[in-house]
Each structure stands twice: as C-alpha cells, then as structure tokens.
C-alpha cells in the first residue's frame, strides 16, 4: 500500500499546543495567550509551526514493540539500520486548536545510491474544512549495518 490516510478523532486542542511549546522550551505567547495572538492578526492561539509535522496524535495506531505509534511503511531492508535524512516542510496556514487534522502519507521514490537506500515520502495535512494546512516531504535512509 503506497498511500494511507489518518484522521484525528478529535480537535487538536489548546492543551496539545501548550504541551508541545513547553516541551520544546518555546515560551512564545502566540501559542498560549489568545489576547496576544489576536493583537497579531490571529483569532486566538496558534500551534508552533512544526507541531503538525511531528505529532502521532492523528494516527490512532497502537504502540509497537519499541513503543512507536506513528506511521510507517513496513519496509524491510535486511542488514540495514534506519536514519532520518531530512525534511522539507511547507506551511500553508497556521494550525489552530479547533482543527481536526487529516494526514495522507504517500510513498514516493526508493533510490539505491552508494550502498544506501533513500526512501522519500510525502505527508499532506488538511483540516475538517478541507483547508490545506501543510506538506511534509521526508527522506529516510537505510544504511548498511557494517557502515560506521
């Protein structure tokens, strides 16, 4: 399966936004103070820019043996270990507490180069009004175990 869609069972919520900001150590009041956010053109608090790309809140998946509950493609490349290559985030509009987020993951190219395997996939995030919120292109790299 090369495409999977998850819809969050609930609104993102203010607590999730405040929790993320506090965990990062980001004290920007845009994320916690409605009056401050309104002074700067928003209709209330917004989420920190990268929250939407990071939370597994939307997937509703159980934890696997390693404790992970996020999206995976179940790709198996024996004799390799997985590292994160990079991300490109497009932020189309600020994410707000009332957003009910749907994410669609699409598996892109799988390229072998210099003994490594590069897997690219794209996640597209929308809300319940079908507004495009953000796009995340992610590259994962499977490195041979014998490499340092």
């Amino acid at each position, binding site marked *: 399966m090369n495409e999977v869609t998850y819809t969050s069972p609930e609104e993102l919520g203010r607590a*999730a936004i405040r929790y993320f900001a506090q965990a*990062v150590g980001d004290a920007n009041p845009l994320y916690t103070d409605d009056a401050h956010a309104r002074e700067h*053109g928003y209709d209330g608090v917004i989420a920190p*820019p990268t929250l939407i790309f990071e939370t*597994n809140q939307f997937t509703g998946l159980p934890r696997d043996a*390693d404790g*992970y509950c*996020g999206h995976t493609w179940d790709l198996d490349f024996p004799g390799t270990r997985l590292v994160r290559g990079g*991300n490109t985030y497009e932020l189309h509009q600020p994410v707000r507490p009332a957003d009910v987020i749907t994410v669609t993951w699409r598996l892109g190219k799988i390229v072998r180069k210099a003994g490594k395997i590069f897997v690219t996939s794209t996640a597209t995030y929308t809300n319940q009004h079908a507004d495009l919120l953000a796009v995340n292109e992610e590259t994962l790299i499977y490195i041979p175990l014998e490499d340092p």
Partner: protein
Amino acid sequence: MIPPLQRRIDPAGMIAYAGATWDWHRLHHDSAYAVERGLPAPVVDGQLFGALLAEQLQDWLGPSARITRMSFRFRSMVFAGETVRCTGRVVSEADGLLTVEQQVEVIGDNPRIAVAPATSVVERRL
C-alpha cells in the same frame, strides 16, 4: 546575523517532547536500549531541531512574521545531555519574503554539525 539560540537537551526535556509528539520510541528515552545498540545515550528526536530553528526565527522576527517553508538535512545524531546551538544568516529578501540559512551544531566535548543546511522562508506581514 540571526541571534543564536542555544539549548541543553536534558532527559526530562526529551521525555516531555516524546509525550507532546506521541512518539514513545525507546530510542528517545531508554538508556539501556541505546547502549545495547552501541549508542552512548538516548537519541534526540531529529525533528526537535526543526522546532528550535522555528523558535529562533520567530523570536528574532516577532509575532507578525510567519514561516512558510523549512527544509533541513540531518548530519549526525545528538544524544541526551548534549547542548546545541542554532545559528543563521539572511540569504535574500524580496517582496516581503525573507530567505535564511541556518544550522544546528553540537557544542561541548564532541563538537559537530547536527543539522545543515537548513533553509527557511519567512513571510513578513504588516
């Protein structure tokens, strides 16, 4: 020059980030799991650096600026207890869009680049 942002990534912060992102993978909080795999300590979730790079830009440009694009590559793992420093510079500015290049480096006993290049585009609203 963009004012740098420096932060020590302590174990409690990593657990908080794992909780906030619903990512409870043992790699990010279980020391024994990390050591079994030849790593010195739990590995910091790479996308935390995206959050720090966004914080650095937003703190610098203020609440009226909005980040519209971020792109970054990971160069090396960062481990619990290490301190990172985000630095950056402006590459160009045109039509209210600012393009910046940032990086994240680990400072201390084992200095190295963690994230580079990191390119962002910020819209300056009135």
